[in-house]
């Protein structure tokens, strides 16, 4: 608490971090006077944040002092979802939870208890770390938090053995930036300035996306392909690179295996065939390949949204084969970008304490199947139902899949639900016990970007408001109430930070608890990724042919697999629901965070759906009409925005994760598929056929 407790009427400046689960993870400065923060700005000294948060982050002050902050524990005083609460003491809250959990463990076994989290407020300690001490000790069901990027992570592993790609700052050196299924403008806006520095020097901008996002409007080349056909496009590009001898023979020979197999594979992807699958003319496939191969300093940034589909892993695998073909791996300004992990090798064992679980084997439930898990639609929960659910740093209604099914599960009378949040969210409406969470400015934490190699320290700027508490405090106190006597449950946040930084990993060389407090953030220098041309694959090389992929049941090279909900894979479904719905992030929400902030609501407006004019006219829909959007999973009513170019015919776009209760029950994830992707249990939000009709 080095910066708080300043003398009255003198301004103090407290360095913090925006933890709302963003690539950029901004460094912030809170300006505080007489015990109250009066302004929150971005840190100018940090080259990534460069003085400002994003549109969402401008409103941090309105969030921390929001009149709707949950400040006291509550218990349900009506039916589930009815919104009636009675304030209780922490003592009563802890006793109720401890008794209920102890009873559940005695009658149904420890795996009848399940945490649900991911993601609101991020943090190495309070989100990734200490809550798992509690759940490990219990022996609770493990929640697989695989909503974001996991399918692609597995795919990149097959190719490179490691997913960590180029730093955003390095893009100033690029000759070509390819935003593939990503939307930097809305989800990583601080990286755009680096791309623009390269563009000022003549670099080309290419966007591959079914939706014309802001950078697509500026792009030198915009590939507006049919949703879910990216793998076919990538293999078509590979074919041109090889056919036209544009590939780097020297690099391929030295650092890759399986080039012949790739050649055989792309022989199956003639340009007419790829053009037919992707709805991209052959000339654009060729144009892309030639532009891409012009310089090794070409970087491909892959987003997450387009990978959240049944064929998401195979899609990323196909795209990942392009950089080594042009020899851009290990090159300044080249390579790929997906996620960075290597700069935060904190000791997760220290934080999470898997030893407290010991040799007990507990089941895993994928968070993408929460509704199925709660309603007994999963075989494992049909036999052994979830009886106790603890939701923290997460809000599955509206952010998760198949919201209607999740709601059905949360309405179960025999389910005991704890929700620990800063606000009475959509999910919190179904809680038996509500616990007030501290705002991030009220607790100490360590954060890391997940694109860009920063580790950042958040000093607490305020005391927790009302009776709110940090995650560490709640899980440690609850553990003690459950009778767990391990010393770790008495640790403070500072203890855990110190313990988990006690590492010999060179990335953490200069990073200690004290240096974090003093410097606020570090840029970990990991150099150009793969500069040594060493790869953690079985062969030690980049694998165009992956035996590991083959063993796991995938095409050993790559393949276009028509998505589960598509004209090719499900013609009957397609006849009923002929529109591909894509649900990217708005710039004004991060998952469901911020929607309850009046300044954001004013700017965001009501949820809309962008529809091509051709699809609208065949349905008698005019601009501004209300339409119903539906499939077998649900139905929502939205305002139509007609376009000639933002989406093509057969595609519709609606921004995700508006709160259900703030939109009259019309959150878009009522329609979202709750299955697992082809790889790693990834989510499938983008595998989503719908029909649209005038309301």
């Amino acid at each position, binding site marked *: 608490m080095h910066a708080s407790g300043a003398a009255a009427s003198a301004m103090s400046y407290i360095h913090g971090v925006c933890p709302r689960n963003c690539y950029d993870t901004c460094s912030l400065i809170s300006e505080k006077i007489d015990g109250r923060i009066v*302004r929150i*700005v*971005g840190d100018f000294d940090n080259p990534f944040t*460069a*003085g*400002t*948060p*994003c*549109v969402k982050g*401008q*409103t941090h*002050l*309105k969030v921390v002092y929001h009149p709707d902050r949950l400040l006291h524990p509550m218990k349900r005083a009506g039916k589930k979802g009815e919104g009636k609460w009675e304030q209780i003491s922490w003592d009563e809250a802890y006793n109720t939870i401890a008794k209920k959990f102890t009873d559940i463990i005695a009658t149904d076994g420890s795996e009848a208890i399940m945490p649900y989290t991911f993601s609101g407020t991020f943090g190495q300690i309070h989100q990734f770390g200490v809550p798992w001490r509690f759940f490990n000790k219990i022996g609770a069901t493990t929640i697989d938090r695989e909503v974001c990027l996991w399918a692609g992570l597995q795919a990149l592993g097959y190719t490179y053995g490691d997913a960590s790609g180029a730093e955003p700052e390095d893009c100033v050196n690029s000759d070509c930036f390819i935003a593939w299924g990503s939307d930097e*403008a*809305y989800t990583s*806006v*601080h990286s*755009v*300035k680096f791309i*623009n520095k390269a*563009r000022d020097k003549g670099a080309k901008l290419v966007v591959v996306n079914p939706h*014309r996002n*802001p*950078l*697509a*409007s*500026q792009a030198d080349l*915009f590939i507006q392909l049919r949703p879910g056909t990216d793998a076919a496009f990538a293999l078509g590009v590979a074919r041109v690179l090889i056919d036209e001898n544009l590939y780097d023979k020297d690099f391929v020979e030295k650092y890759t295996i399986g080039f012949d197999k790739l050649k055989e594979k792309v022989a199956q992807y003639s340009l007419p065939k790829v053009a037919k699958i992707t709805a991209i003319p052959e000339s654009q496939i060729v144009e892309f390949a030639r532009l891409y191969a012009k310089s090794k300093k070409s970087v491909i940034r892959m987003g997450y949204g387009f990978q959240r589909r049944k064929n998401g892993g195979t899609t990323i695998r196909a795209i990942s084969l392009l950089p080594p073909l042009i020899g851009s791996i290990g090159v300044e300004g080249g390579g790929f970008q997906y996620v960075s992990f290597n700069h935060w090798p904190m000791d997760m064992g220290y934080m999470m304490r898997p030893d407290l679980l010991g040799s007990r084997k507990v089941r895993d439930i994928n968070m993408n199947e929460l509704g199925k898990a709660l309603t007994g639609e999963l075989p494992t929960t049909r036999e052994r139902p979830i009886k106790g659910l603890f939701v923290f740093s997460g809000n599955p209604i509206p952010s998760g899949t198949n919201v209607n099914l999740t709601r059905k599960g949360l309405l179960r009378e025999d389910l005991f639900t704890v929700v620990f949040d800063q606000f009475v969210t959509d999910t919190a409406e179904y809680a038996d016990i509500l616990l007030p969470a501290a705002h991030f400015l009220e607790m100490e934490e360590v954060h890391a970007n997940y694109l860009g190699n920063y580790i950042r320290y958040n000093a607490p700027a305020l005391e927790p408001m009302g009776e709110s508490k940090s995650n560490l405090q709640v899980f440690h106190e609850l553990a003690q109430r459950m009778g767990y006597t391990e010393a770790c449950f008495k640790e403070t946040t500072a203890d855990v930070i110190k313990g988990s930084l006690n590492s010999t990993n060179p990335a953490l060389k200069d990073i200690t608890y004290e240096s974090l407090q003093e410097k606020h953030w570090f840029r970990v220098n990991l150099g150009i990724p793969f500069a040594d041309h060493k790869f953690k694959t079985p062969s030690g090389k980049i694998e165009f042919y992956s035996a590991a992929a083959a063993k796991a049941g995938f095409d050993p090279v790559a393949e276009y697999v028509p998505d589960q909900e598509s004209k090719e894979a499900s013609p009957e479904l397609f006849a009923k629901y002929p529109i591909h719905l894509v649900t990217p992030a708005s*710039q*004004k929400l991060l998952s469901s965070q911020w929607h309850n902030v*009046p*300044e954001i609501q*004013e*700017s965001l407006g009501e949820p809309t759906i962008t529809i091509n004019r051709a699809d609208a006219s065949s349905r008698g829909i005019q601009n501004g009409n209300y339409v119903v959007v539906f499939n077998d999973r649900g139905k929502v009513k939205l305002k139509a925005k007609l376009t*000639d*170019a*933002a989406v093509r015919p057969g595609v519709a776009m609606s921004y995700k994760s508006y709160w259900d209760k703030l939109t009259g029950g019309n959150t878009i994830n009522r329609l979202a598929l709750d299955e697992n992707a082809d790889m790693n249990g990834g989510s499938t939000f983008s595998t989503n056929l719908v029909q649209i009709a005038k309301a």
Partner: protein
Amino acid sequence: MGMQKAFYYNQNYCVGCTSCAMACRIAKNVDLSISWRQVDEYETTFRGREVARYLSHACNHCKKPACMAACPVGAYSKREKDGLVLQDHAKCIGCGNCVAACPYKAPKMNAKTKKAEKCDGCYDLLDKGELAACHRGCPVQVLKLESLAKLESNGAVKEAIGFVTYATEPSFRFEPAKK
């Protein structure tokens, strides 16, 4: 008159994130029923395809401010040192003449206070050596408030999509449009 300040905007690179408008609202505590700065979206043609372009705009701190000319009580003045057009809010009688007179619709009538208000160029921040809230708040670095003479010597132009130069001589300049 000292060095006239002007807004600079690179329409080629703006992504419409609206961070500038939100930074303005928060810094100036602007009532939710009105905006001092707003971001409009336009559909236009770029290299033969239909694309979106944005225009972030506020008060243009004109050389010949229509608001100032229209105000019956002399509430508006042009600041000597940087040409910012400021309004003495205590003097405003809420007649709405400035709202009607401004060709850029910069002054807004606040229904709660029944007075007009508009962008003040964050003169208070500038006087402390800081940047205007929108300038600082642009994460893409396409919006600035700086010396008009400097902008003009750097080749900034007077035209952009969605913007017309009226006789008030607005202090708003643009990066030349990419062709």
